[in-house]
């Protein structure tokens, strides 16, 4: 019983074993022909140092809009784990940890939070285990600096802009700028573009798909967590199965907040 028997009519798979014939002038034969003719014409063969380096296929990052390529699986994994995990499905920001992603979603994309925060302390301290909550994000920032000794030139979340129109929570346009935890760690991954650092303080509405969206670099102390063992693929439940990073959803989403 061969595998081909098991293919249903609706299977998209189409591989068929096939022998192939190559003609004398086929392009695959070019290198061999050239080598042969160099020999006939008494041209010296290439020196060992002259030979081209072994050519390996590159790993390409699969995240939408990211066109980074890597020479090894390790480099690729590091990049992917740093830049594309824990991604917010609404605004496509990446966060170094699931917790920070949770906090982000709660504070930015939850209308209940908006309501409650007007009368309660809702802004949690970002340091795990601390548990304190604050009325405004500025208060939280001050707390982080004073109590937890975060550097003062740290970039925290900035004030959100008012939503332009009433939209469903998940689809709220993130018109505002910097996500939190941008500068958690000075150690920026190799893959992050240097120019991104400057862009961060400005409004980041232009989430151009050409480059990677502004990413959160891995937090220093937290890096082992994300980079080391393989955590459960947590981003999967941040990104509902129905939402895809493909063209349709994000572009439409991005445009929604901006059309006049």
């Amino acid at each position, binding site marked *: 019983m061969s595998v081909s028997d098991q293919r249903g009519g609706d299977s998209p*798979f189409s*591989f068929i074993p096939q*022998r192939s014939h*190559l003609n004398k002038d086929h392009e695959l034969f*070019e290198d061999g022909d050239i080598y042969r003719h160099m020999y*006939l014409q008494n041209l010296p063969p290439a020196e060992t140092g002259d030979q081209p380096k072994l050519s390996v296929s590159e790993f390409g990052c699969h995240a939408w809009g990211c066109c980074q390529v890597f020479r090894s699986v390790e480099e690729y994994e590091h990049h992917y784990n740093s830049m594309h995990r824990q991604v917010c499905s609404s605004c496509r920001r990446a966060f170094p940890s699931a917790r920070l992603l949770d906090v982000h979603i709660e504070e930015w994309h939850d209308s209940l939070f908006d309501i409650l925060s007007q009368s309660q302390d809702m802004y949690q301290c970002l340091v795990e285990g601390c548990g304190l909550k604050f009325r405004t994000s500025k208060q939280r920032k001050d707390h982080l600096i004073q109590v937890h000794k975060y550097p003062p030139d740290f970039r925290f979340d900035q004030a959100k802009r008012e939503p332009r129109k009433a939209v469903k929570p998940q689809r709220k346009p993130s018109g505002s700028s910097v996500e939190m935890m941008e500068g958690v760690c000075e150690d920026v991954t190799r893959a992050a573009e240097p120019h991104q650092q400057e862009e961060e303080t400005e409004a980041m509405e232009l989430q151009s798909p050409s480059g990677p969206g502004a990413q959160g670099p891995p937090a220093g102390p937290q890096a082992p967590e994300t980079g080391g063992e393989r955590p459960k693929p947590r981003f999967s439940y941040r990104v509902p199965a129905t939402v895809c990073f493909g063209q349709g959803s994000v572009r439409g989403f991005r445009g929604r907040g901006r059309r006049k």
Partner: protein
Amino acid sequence: MWRLSSVRHKAVPQGRSSEELKLKRRGHEKVLRQARKDQQLVSKRLLLSEDGDEPQTPMDANPGDQVVNLVLQLQHGGPGKEHHLKALIKTLRNPTAQTMFTKQENSMHLLVGLLSGSQAQWRLLAVHCLHELSQSHQPNVTQACLPATPYLLTYLSGQSTKFTELCLYTLGNLCPDSDVVRDKLLAQGIIPALKNCMESQRHNLAIVEAVGFTLSQLLQAKDAAETIIPMILASGLPSLLLSVLTPDPQFGLAPAIECAWCLHYLICSTMDKSSLRAEGALSRCSSLLVSLGGAVSQGNKEEGMELLVWPLLRSVGNLLSSGPTEELSSQVGDLHLLSALCALARAYHPSHPALARESIWVLNNLTADSSELCAALLDLNLVPELLQLLPCSQGINTMILRVLGNVAHKSNTFCSRLAQSGVVASLCATLRLSEPGIVVLSLEVFFMLVSGCPQAAEEFVKQNGVSLLKAVQCNGEGEIRQRAAHLLVHHLPSQHTAQ
């Protein structure tokens, strides 16, 4: 094993820096590549003359005038003929001189007279002159040599090695440039002459090499398939060519190289390969490849071996590409051909990736339609070796994935065995590669694996394949997206549907 004894032929320029040589070589290579694209790839061989002069000796003064003078002096007769002829040989290395010579009245008549005369020494020098003329790429120069060709052909059945060699290389050089020359040569019986020469001088390496070269020049003609090839197939030359392809160390590498290239040109242009198969071409070429693969895997990479491996791979690959599959494995003979092909790919992929790729192409043609050979691939434990070559680009990984697909396609048992050989982990790596074609193929192979062997799915999940597959699905183009989605829905455990 063999030694590439071509010291005589190699005219490596002396006294240049290696940088200069490198640049020069790259320049030449570029020219050749363009010529091939234009289907104008033509080479001529130059034999150095007896006194060991380098062909790059600078010319004095005006070569055109020199030629005229020399010819006049020769025509007047008198002493010093030998001296003048030697001077003429040197002068005729210059392209201007070559053109002047052909324009001069009765110049060729003079040479032909010497060539057909009674003085052996003058005959030899005359053929040297013709040899220099044959280096020209100008059709009017090569056509001017036509009056001499009947004599050159006649001398092929002579006994003097050096002389016969020169005749052969001269004829070989004259072939590619123009249809007129080629048609005349065919009419004058070049093919039977070559066959007789090779048959009677079978023991003479230099002659066999020269015949092989000349034949290969004929076979590269654009219209070879219509006229030349049928004549060659009918002449008895193929079996002679095959007899040269022996791993006998007494028989030099160089003749085998020429004959192998002839075979390649014959096989890739012939639609009906049955006559060649009947001669045992497949088993002969395969067993030679097995010897070469064995040598290479023991670290014996002789200089010039690629020149022999290349045409053999192509011959075997194309012989396999059509025809009945039932007797394939018996025709191939030694199943160690499979190991040899892997060994060749491994040995040559850093320096000659195209050669490695052709090697795997032959593997594809072997495994595509034969369960027996797929089983042999597994039995010889070649799959891990192939998996190690998966990072290599330039088409090597694509071809390897096809071979794996060929095996998986045959039966569920094969799928299990593949899964046990670590294919799943390798597919997780190839799924991450940036070339879409490779990703599609990887998905195809994985689909077959998982359809035939459910344990493969478990292994895949363990390797964190599910999140990988989702990323591939989300971000790939249509073909990729469809396949990834199908796999996620139908073949992977339901944990992906959580949340």
